[in-house]
């Protein structure tokens, strides 16, 4: 069987040498009897992108590059480095050296395990492949969540309403953290799920679909949906839409982005948006019908509805509680806030008590999640939930339910719609502080125990 060679060519301006080197390598490679594929990273973007599979199977890897490129895909592999001009001048020598490992260097890292491999593994099929796409999204979303959450929380440190005054530092931090970073977290998540599935072509539909998911209040689950829709619809358009080769450029820059983004956005709005709206109305009526009934039932319902961690269903609970503030009913607000704080705190505690169950990245995220939980920024739990919903969601629902029951039974009341533990320093914001803290602690411990338990069971399997 013919030996396989892969190469990347890239020059500084990206309009001439990149392509000349690619052409030379392709031509000479074929003449020498190799199966060769060349990815060009020129001024108009990457073309003929190498798949993880092609890289894994390659007998020789050539990087004919004059500028820094992302080399993480080649972690642990022997690569032959040359200037683009060198590949034009001596293509035969370059190819043979790469295959025979003459003058090659081994890149650090383990082969085909680098995290960035995830994003190019669009050949994966089934659940495992889907999981990888979600993980790719999570890894990009995580820093956005941490930055957004912490900066938002910092704005509360100036007083929970300090951010409302335009031009102040608190206002700026809140703008950057809450509107900026937390507003972008779902779009970034969807964008990189789509990117993982369909490479760069999927990005536009992914990021816009994610934004739409966010704006119709579809939460992180809407974001996952938008990401997958964007990825697969883009792939479909790229692969199935017949276009003459001469119009390829038009297809890539006009047809694919417009069609994929348009379709995904429309689906999100009309197919997903309407039911979410209807559901919201229904649940709000349902919650209203519960008031005056058993507080234990209300507590359980609160916890269960908080399952989507700040998504459309939890928004119903939150909005319901905020609405009651105006009527001078403060206990549901305390319970809702417990529901939103317990998930990140509980998960954070779980990463502290059983570090072995978590990756290094998750352990770091755990520390941030604790602080986010204290600040009533439920989003801190989302990266964990997106990665492992079967463990995290039930653990959080149970913890939130227990927490809100305790809060309601203890008669804790909160008069402000946000702020988390920052409220404690404000006189009269929280009544029955002791009861409120016990509710938080109880809920968080339940989430922690269940998370550890379920995750250990899963790992043993």
């Amino acid at each position, binding site marked *: 069987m013919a030996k396989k060679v892969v190469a990347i060519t890239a020059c500084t301006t*990206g*309009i001439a040498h990149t392509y*000349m080197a690619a*052409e030379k390598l392709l031509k000479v490679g074929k003449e020498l009897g190799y199966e060769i594929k060349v990815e060009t990273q020129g001024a*108009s973007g990457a073309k003929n992108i190498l798949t993880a599979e092609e890289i894994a199977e390659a007998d020789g890897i050539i990087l004919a590059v004059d500028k820094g490129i992302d080399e993480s895909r080649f972690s642990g592999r022997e690569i032959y480095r040359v*200037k683009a001009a060198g590949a034009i001048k001596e293509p035969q020598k370059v190819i043979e050296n790469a295959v025979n490992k003459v003058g090659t260097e081994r890149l650090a890292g383990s082969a085909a395990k680098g995290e960035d491999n995830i994003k190019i593994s669009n050949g994966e099929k089934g659940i495992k492949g889907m999981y990888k796409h979600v993980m790719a999204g999570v890894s990009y979303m995580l820093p956005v969540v941490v930055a957004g959450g912490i900066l938002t929380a910092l704005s509360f440190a100036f007083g929970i309403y300090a951010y409302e005054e335009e031009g102040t530092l608190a206002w700026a931090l809140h703008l950057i953290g809450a509107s900026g970073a937390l507003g972008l977290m779902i779009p970034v998540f969807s964008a990189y799920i789509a990117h993982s599935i369909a490479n760069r072509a999927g990005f536009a539909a992914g990021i816009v679909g994610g934004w739409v998911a966010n704006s119709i209040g579809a939460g992180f689950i809407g974001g996952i949906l938008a990401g997958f829709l964007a990825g697969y619809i883009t792939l479909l358009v790229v692969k199935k839409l017949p276009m003459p080769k001469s119009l390829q450029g038009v297809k890539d*820059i006009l047809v694919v982005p417009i069609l994929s983004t348009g379709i995904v956005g429309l689906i999100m709005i009309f197919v997903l948006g309407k039911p979410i709206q209807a559901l919201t109305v229904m649940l709000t009526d349902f919650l209203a019908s519960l008031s005056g009934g058993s507080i234990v039932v209300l507590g359980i319902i609160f916890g269960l509805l908080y399952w989507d961690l700040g998504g459309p269903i939890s928004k119903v609970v939150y909005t319901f509680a905020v609405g009651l503030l105006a009527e001078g009913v403060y206990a549901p607000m305390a319970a809702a806030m417990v529901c939103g704080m317990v998930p990140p705190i509980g998960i954070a505690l779980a990463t502290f008590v059983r570090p072995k169950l978590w990756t290094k990245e998750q352990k770091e995220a755990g520390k941030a999640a604790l602080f986010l939980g204290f600040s009533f920024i439920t989003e801190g739990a989302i990266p964990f939930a997106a990665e492992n919903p079967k463990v995290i969601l039930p653990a959080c629902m149970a913890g939130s339910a227990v927490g809100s029951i305790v809060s309601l039974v203890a008669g804790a009341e909160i008069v402000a719609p946000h702020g988390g533990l920052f409220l404690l320093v404000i006189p009269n914001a929280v009544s029955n502080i002791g009861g409120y803290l016990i509710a938080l602690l109880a809920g968080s411990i339940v989430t922690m125990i269940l998370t550890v338990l379920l995750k250990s069971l899963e790992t043993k399997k």
Partner: protein
Amino acid sequence: MAKIKITDLFDRNSISINSAPKSKKEAIDEAIELMARSGKINDVEGYRKAVYAREDEGTTGIGEGLAIPHGKCSAVNRPGLAAMVIRNGVDYESLDDEPVSLLFLIAAPDTEDNIHLDVLAKLSMMLMDENFTNNLRNAGSINEFLQIIDAEDAKREEI
């Protein structure tokens, strides 16, 4: 939308099939003059700087008598090409130290205008074919020069 041909990026005034520069500098400067005639350059000195800066990074004389100097900067309004056939060749500090007899100068604006960049990329690839470049060197007129490019351009389409 009509497909863009490589020759669409050529201005007839920007092609010389019989040049005789005495040095690399003369060759590049002459090519820049040819390019400037097309009206696609809004700041000739700025563009010249970009071309020489690229040259300083490493010679664009890529061997086998071919040179592809290029500049991508804001001094360029629209993507353009200029070409020179240098019958007797000129020393260009090429990779293989052979004199250059065919020179293409590329001008690209500082945008991410993919369609035109792809057209330029295609030309770069075509230039790796020696039959093609030899035919260009032997072109008897500007018309013939453009026809040879069109023919090869169309041939590549089918691949």
